[in-house]
């Protein structure tokens, strides 16, 4: 059985993000990492492989040359090979989903595709469901628990405020996972070294013939939000500061 994992490279959470026209200053980003939610996805795929035996895990990602680095992590965690759709173009979520669908179909439609439920850079929250639609696959997001059965993928999808839905997804299925589903492994040093030898196939985006023109969602500007210049610190005995705070919130800010 073949499983795909869609992975994305994003700036490290500590990275300095500076606007640069309609994008960000990528040179200012010192460290790029595998999207944390995609780490859960890779881990879930590798666990299924370890439990079931005859499974190939293929990591697929889209982006410029530097995206190569994110395959190293996925392969070191246990993915078998990778597919890198190479492009420098800024694509909108619909175009990304289209490219992924083309690459996946080209390689051979799998039973199961894992991905993270959101990417922490653009937080678009939609590539997974668009991808599923393009492939005619079932899909669930916010998946906190997964098991593979004869009927398909049985998942728990978090529905908000602690509620959850148990769903059965008929294969092929796109499963977008969230935190709590597993604890991703640290790649072992031997696996890190072995990962260097695993195949990552490069496909130029143009070669996929996806046919999409310009993005339907265009970024017109990136702005730094207003810097907060500081508030009021109340110091002293709680017996004094607390009534003062409540008074301000009640009368000045009129919240409560």
């Amino acid at each position: 059985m073949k499983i795909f994992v869609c992975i994305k490279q994003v700036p490290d959470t500590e990275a300095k993000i500076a606007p640069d026209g309609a994008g960000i200053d990528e040179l200012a980003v010192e460290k790029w990492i595998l999207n944390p939610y995609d780490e859960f996805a890779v881990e879930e795929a590798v666990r299924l492989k370890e439990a079931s035996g005859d499974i190939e895990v293929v990591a697929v990602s889209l982006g410029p040359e530097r995206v190569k680095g994110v395959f190293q992590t996925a392969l070191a965690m246990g993915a078998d090979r990778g597919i890198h759709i190479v492009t420098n173009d800024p694509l909108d979520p619909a175009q990304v989903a289209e490219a992924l669908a083309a690459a996946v179909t080209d390689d051979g439609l799998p039973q199961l595709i894992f991905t993270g439920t959101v990417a922490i850079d653009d937080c678009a929250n939609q590539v997974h469901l668009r991808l599923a639609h393009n492939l005619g696959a079932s899909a669930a997001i916010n998946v906190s628990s997964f098991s593979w059965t004869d009927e398909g993928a049985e998942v728990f999808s978090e529905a908000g405020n602690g509620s959850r839905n148990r769903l059965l997804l008929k294969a092929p299925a796109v499963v977008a996972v969230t935190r709590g589903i597993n604890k991703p492994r640290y790649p072992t040093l031997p696996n890190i070294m072995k990962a260097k030898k695993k195949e990552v196939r490069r496909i130029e985006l143009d070669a996929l013939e996806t046919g999409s023109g310009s993005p339907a969602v265009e970024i017109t500007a990136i702005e730094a939000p207003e810097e907060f210049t500081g508030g009021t610190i109340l110091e002293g005995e709680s017996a004094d500061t607390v009534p003062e705070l409540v008074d301000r919130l009640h009368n000045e800010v009129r919240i409560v």
Partner: protein
Amino acid sequence: MDLRLSEDQKMIREAARDFLEGECPSSFVRDLEGSSTGHDPHLWQAMAELGLMGVSFPEEYGGLGKGFLELCVLIEEMGRFRLTGPFFTTVALCGMAIIRFGTQEQKSQYLGPIAGGERIMAYAALEPGRSWDTSSCALRAEEDDGAWILNGVKIFVPYAEAADDLLVLARTGEGSENGLTLFIVDTSDPGVSLKRLQTLGPEHQYEVLFEDVSVQGNRILGAPGRGLEASNMVSQWGAAAKCAQMVGGAQRVLEMSVEYAKERVQFGKPIGTFQAVQHNCANMAVDLDSSRFISYEAIWRLEEGLEAATEVSAAKAWVSDACSRVCRLGHGVHGAIGFTMEHDMQLYSRHCKEAELAFGDADWHREQVARRIGL
């Protein structure tokens, strides 16, 4: 001359950093220091699974097949995360000694289990009242019908309580040339007793008493009388690797200090805008950079099998002083908050102090350098 880490070395560093960042926060390290043995079996197991113990071991013994330099890259990261525990003594001292001087049988018996996280070993060479030069060893080992009987005392043995075995330097004859032998002693052997030492540093140190401890001949590392060469090598590896550890700690101290200097406001401005603070941080950066290069030169020479005694002593002397300065300035930048036990600064400065004294202090190493340059 390419002074950068290789791709593989960078990968090892990144992997170690990610793991230690996730698993060794300040609270964990503090708990470790306060625990009875200073050893956490869960962390140990996780480290073994990651392959950390076996980085410098040959692949046939479950290792990664890399060398001493890669091991030091790892030890530098442990210094960065102020991680204490039996890793250093087990892997950098005992493990390296067994690879280089052990018999085939000893390598098979010990290296695989160490790599697999199943065996902890501690190096015991220093003695009370004696010099950093371990060839002044007095603990006696006398042959008695195929076995050797050990009598004496060793001091500053790290993690002896957590250890399964001790690698003990003993006197089997007169003089240093042929009179010293390394023995592998099981800590549960009758006659071995431990006393925990209350030290300023965060590591668990012990005094170990040997009273008529009987050791079989096959537990001699290599051959009888060959202990000088082995113990000298262990001292060099130890000193060089301690330098790497100090560099890792100093790097983090510099980063914390610069971050703090940018945030902390006094007299209406961030203290990082004051020239004195800037100069202090600059000096820390220079001390760190110089320490890094003098350490890795010594480490590289040891890895390549080149004569390294001068470089190791030069590094240990310099790095001990330089990292001590970095810690002192780090305390200075952090001011009052850096004086509290709650703040991590004291973890770094105490760990550094301990490292300064391991394998010879700065003055002792300066003497070695002086001798080697002809005085």
